[in-house]
């Protein structure tokens, strides 16, 4: 009978954690960037609409 010695899987949990931190971290940063850019653009729209109203009134 052939005996195959069992070797346990290597301990690579730290790499897995690092991988998921990168994946979920970059996704979160992108979501935040979308939110911040939208907020800034909405402020710009508000200012430009006010300017447009002023020029229309003249």
């Amino acid at each position, binding site marked *: 009978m052939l005996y195959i010695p069992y070797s346990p*899987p*290597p*301990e*690579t*949990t730290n*790499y*897995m954690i*690092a*991988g*998921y931190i*990168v*994946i*979920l971290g*970059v*996704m979160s940063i*992108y*979501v935040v960037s*979308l939110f911040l*850019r*939208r907020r800034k*653009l*909405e402020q*710009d*729209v508000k200012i*430009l*609409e006010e*300017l*447009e109203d002023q*020029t229309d009134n003249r």
Partner: protein
Amino acid sequence: MNRQPRKLVILNIVTLILLVAATLVVFLYAPMEAKMGNVQKVFYFHLAAAWVGMIGFSVAVIAGIAYLITNQRKWDIAGLAAVEVSLVFFFIAIVAGSIWARRTWGTWWTWDPRLTSAAIVELVYAAYLMLRQGIEDPDRRARFGAVYAIIAFISVPITFFSIRILRTIHPDLNQSGSGGMGLTPKMLHTLLFSLFVFSFVFADLYWHRLRLGQLTDKIEQLRLKVLE
């Protein structure tokens, strides 16, 4: 403040729930791989992120062709949004793959055909964003973006097929034996579920990015009007 449409709010919630579910499936359902250990679990989201990249770059081609045919600005906005979202996810795929490679191949990076072609894709589409910013005229910018997105897409199938055409150390899902992944049914379920969930993630982020593009376009129109 411009409120999100009801459908988008529902999509946000569904996507978030699915993402949490996919993470739990990866950590609790998928078995540990015998040779690599837990680091193999990075593979599920690594591949799913690359999948999002492929979807987005394909959408950009369709939007590019649609723009050249119709000359409507909405297609330019659609193409730009698709490229930006995909670029982020392709970056995630490259970095996650690099972390996996460090433990499996003993190096963060090697000039393997798959890795090199993936890096080229990332740089080609990063250049798309940078070059667009240098063009003032909106119509010229849109035309340039459409043509660029169509030509740049050539790099995507090259990356996809590089592991079959060229000698590479990158594992191939379709190959059995030492060059393949040797996925068990549970691993395959986890992979397919991750791909499904990341398709939702793409749809959700793409919708948000489209709305951002529409707002940017509105500002551009308003600026022109005020300057006149």
